[in-house]
Every structure is written in C-alpha cells, then in structure tokens.
C-alpha cells in the first residue's frame, strides 16, 4: 500500500517537500515508517530516531498497524512554547 507521510520543520526542510509517499507491506507498522524515512533521508538519521509518529493526529506506539489509517505524520522533537 502507498502511504503519504507528512513531514515538518527540519525534516521538511531537508526533504524539500511537505510529505513523502512510501510503499509499505499491508502489515506494516509505525516502526516501518521510521525505518523507511531514515533510509530516505540518511542525513537526518539522528533526527528521525528522535521522532515520533502520529496516526490520525495522535501519537502512536511503534507496533500500531498502518492499514486503515487516514493520516500519517512524522513528528520530530517539538519546540513550541
């Protein structure tokens, strides 16, 4: 399945776009998102390893399946406030 992963801040800047569409197996999980983005953006390795994944606008644990989700986003460490 093809999944569009939204990117923000430092990740968006390095990738040069607001999202990246990646092909995953049907039984892929959040952990696979992290691995895939790390391979895509090797210069952001340490930042991706610090990032969390949000599924449908909520932080998701690494074993959460991607199948059926509407919105996937990679959330690097936040600095609002």
């Amino acid at each position, binding site marked *: 399945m093809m999944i569009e992963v*939204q990117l*923000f*801040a*430092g990740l968006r*800047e390095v990738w040069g776009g607001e999202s990246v569409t990646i092909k995953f197996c049907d039984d892929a999980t959040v952990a696979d998102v992290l691995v895939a983005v790390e391979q895509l953006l090797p*210069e*952001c*390795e*340490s*930042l991706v390893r*610090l990032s969390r994944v*949000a599924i449908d*606008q*909520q*932080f998701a644990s690494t074993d959460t399946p991607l199948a059926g989700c509407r919105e996937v*986003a990679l*959330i*690097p*460490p*936040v*600095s*609002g*406030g």
Partner: protein
Amino acid sequence: MIELTNKPIDVAKLVATAQQPSAGAVVLFLGITREFTEGKQTTTLYYEAYEAMAHSELTRLHDEACKRWPLVECRLIHRLGEVPLTETSVAVVASAPHRDAAFAAARWLIDNIKLSVPIWKQEHWSDGTQEWVHPGKKQDG
C-alpha cells in the same frame, strides 16, 4: 478555549476573560522571543505547526488540566508564523478560587505544551543563518 493564530496575542483581553467572580487567583504564563540563547543572537523566530494535531493536543491538555484542578477559566494560545523579539509566542492563563491550583495548572500546561504539541520554532540568527530547533538533536553530518 484554545487557539492557534497568526496575529499578535492580546494579553489584556486574555487575562480579563480569566477574571471571573468565582476566581481569586489568576496565573498568566507568556513565552516570548528572547534575543540571546547560549551566546548566539536571535533576529527573529518563526513557528510552524502541524495545525490539526496541534489543535487536538492543546484541547487534550486543556481538558486534562480542567480535570486535575478546579479551574474557573483556562485558555491556551499559540502564535504561528513570525514572532519578533519580545513578542508572545505562547500564552497560558489559568484562574481558580485559590492560587495553588492556578500556579500548578499554568506550570503543568506550559511544560506539557513543550513536550507534546506539534509546533516547531525556527531560529533566525544574527549571522544570517536559520535553524529548526529540535530538542535533543545532535548535529547531523
């Protein structure tokens, strides 16, 4: 009430909403754009959000604070886009019958906003460089 806005935050109006008859204490926290960070000079800051999720995280924190403490009023506002020096990027106001609850709620809210709300700041340094801030990040490459 929570809000994401591109405009300057009206602090006087925000505090006034918290001054209700059943409250005896109001605590306001403002995060403002500071000029110097570890010796480096900031020219200005920009904030970017994953807006839909930031809205829902702020709402979750607001509701959780209202459960934990007997608040009369609680409002969270984060500004996005450019926030010049000395201007307010985030405002938290909490009012309660007594000050313990107002202080505890305001402190808990800003601590948790900084942990879990998907908003990022970009430093514009005086040497002309720009940098997205990601706490804990080592310099790559």
